[in-house]
């Protein structure tokens, strides 16, 4: 008890150390990636296709594949996920059925992503005849993202003060008017933050796509969702497991790019959240 009072906060100190450690780990990780990647990343690396000769290998097709996958995931998962959350919170009566849906959604978020790949292979690739295409990959990733989108959107919607709803109903608003004019603007930032988290999870997912069947070599960038499946995480996997050392640098370059892509995505998300917050105030 000889220490000054400000130092006698072990929990606070521990938390501070944890936060700094996290930052250090992230910086070291990024610096290592950047250092390893600096040997390979240039404009050709962004354009060229993968190659058996490390110096002429690039991530053109993989990058295009990941952008397609993100678009498809957004188009498929956001309307369904947010719609389900609104339905569960605002429309559905509190019955046993909705309780089951709630717990299913919550538990689905914890299933290993490779399981989604196995289901995707059976359902999208085989039963629905999509083949191992970008489309099948997008559908699989959308299913992977759904639980996270639903759970976080519901949490955000539940956080909207009950008074807001009651006041709107009291003024004679219909249920949709309440959702459209009160709930969504108030819950928007929370929903968006949840969607960002879901996207980060799906953009980095390699395991489910590998199960569907991904290209190890692709001479062109996919231009439609019907083209064969390729993506940054699976390209990173292919290079990282490749036994020649030169390919480790390529994997680092692709990983760095994926990291930048996710950072940019989350940054845009954060800016929009801030704008929404400002507007609703």
């Amino acid at each position, binding site marked *: 008890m000889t220490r000054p009072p400000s130092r006698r906060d072990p929990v606070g100190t521990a938390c501070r150390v944890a936060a700094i450690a996290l930052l250090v780990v992230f910086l070291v990780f990024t610096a290592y990636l950047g250092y390893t990647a600096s040997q390979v990343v240039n404009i050709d690396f962004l354009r060229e*296709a993968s*190659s*058996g*000769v490390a110096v002429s290998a690039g991530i053109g097709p993989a990058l295009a594949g990941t952008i397609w996958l993100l678009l*498809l995931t957004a*188009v*498929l998962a956001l*309307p*369904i996920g947010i719609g*389900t959350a609104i*339905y569960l919170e605002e429309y*559905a009566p509190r019955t046993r*059925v909705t309780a*089951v*849906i709630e717990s*299913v959604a919550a538990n689905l978020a914890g299933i290993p992503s490779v399981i989604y790949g196995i289901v995707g292979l059976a359902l999208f*690739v*085989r039963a*629905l005849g*999509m*083949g*191992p295409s970008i*489309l099948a990959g997008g*559908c699989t990733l*959308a299913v992977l993202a759904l639980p996270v989108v639903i759970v976080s959107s519901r949490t955000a919607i539940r956080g909207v003060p009950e008074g807001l709803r009651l006041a709107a109903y009291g003024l004679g608003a219909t249920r949709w008017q309440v959702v459209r004019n009160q709930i969504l603007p108030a819950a928007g930032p929370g929903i968006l933050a949840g969607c960002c988290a879901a996207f980060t999870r799906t953009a980095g997912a390699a395991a489910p796509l590998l199960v569907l*069947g*991904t*290209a*190890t*070599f*692709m*001479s*062109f960038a996919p*231009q*439609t*969702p*019907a*083209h*064969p499946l*390729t993506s940054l995480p699976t390209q990173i996997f292919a290079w990282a*497991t*490749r*036994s*020649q050392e030169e390919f480790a640098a390529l994997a680092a370059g692709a990983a760095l790019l994926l990291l930048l892509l996710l950072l940019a995505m989350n940054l845009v998300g954060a800016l929009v959240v801030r704008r929404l917050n400002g507007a609703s105030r």
Partner: protein
Amino acid sequence: MTAPGIRGWHAIAGSMAVFLLCGCAPDGGRVVVVDGSSSLYPLAEAVSEAFAREHPAARIVIRISGSGGGLRRFCEDEADIATASRLMTAAEMARCRGKGRRFLALPVARDGVAMVVHPANEAVACLTLAELGRIWGPDAAVTTWRDLRPALPAEKVRLFGPGIDSGTFRFFTRVVVGRPGASRTDYYRTEDDHLIVRGVAGDLWSLGYFGSAHHAAHADRLRMLAVDTGFGCVLPTPAAIRDGRYSPLSRDLYLYVKRALLADRDVFDFIEHFVSASELLARETGYAPLPAAEYSRSRALLSEARSDALGQSAGDPGDPRALAGRGQNPPGIRTATHPGRVPRRDPS
């Protein structure tokens, strides 16, 4: 629980339909998908890169699923061309033909199954076929190198090898154990040869096997063992594989090609290029090229099959070649069973 779930799937199906409608390829050639053997991957990659350089509009995709996995995807129409380090089994052929596929098997190169150890492991240089059976057989009792030979150190043998979808696995077990697929299971198994390279290179007392062409890129990290098949110890060098000294552990590597697809110019050009370029590129990527006559025979078969396919797709019943193509025993079956070369089934 079901009501919104079903509604959700309808929405997905609806969006998918929209995407499929706008998803027809706008320009460029047909996408040619190659899937299968990792033993053939270095050659397939080199061939595809050369082809893409010459034909910038070409769209080539290669996947690795192992010979078995590739042939399965080939028959499911998820791949146009399968690469295989073995011929189709009778069961596979029946299943594939049952789905209405008619196909050709074209040998493109030859390689051996190479036994590899850590380069610092100098205790062993050559293994006999019988010793390989004692190491890899289904009831193998060998756990340390000393179990194999009393003069070797009592270190645990760490084993790395191909998984069950691999053609190399089926071939190796057939030759060494006598039954395809009969193998011990307590070792690190993967369809990806790169992981075997990493495993063996990272462990002083390891032992692994894979297609010998993969060794070329890793000669500094792995040492190949010679194998004594009864005529002295032989290393799986391209020369020894080519002149048959490494038999019975050398095998032909094949392309499986759908006859109907040969009517498509893009597919035909790529396969033609694959066969023609293999002679040169096989050497560069560590395989043994086949005798030149084999390549010209494949080319002749290909152009014959292309005229059949063209006749069929034109739907002209008066064309005699179209009729020949629909016959009970299309020429492809001849190649698939390879009368020219007797499959080596007997290890002795």
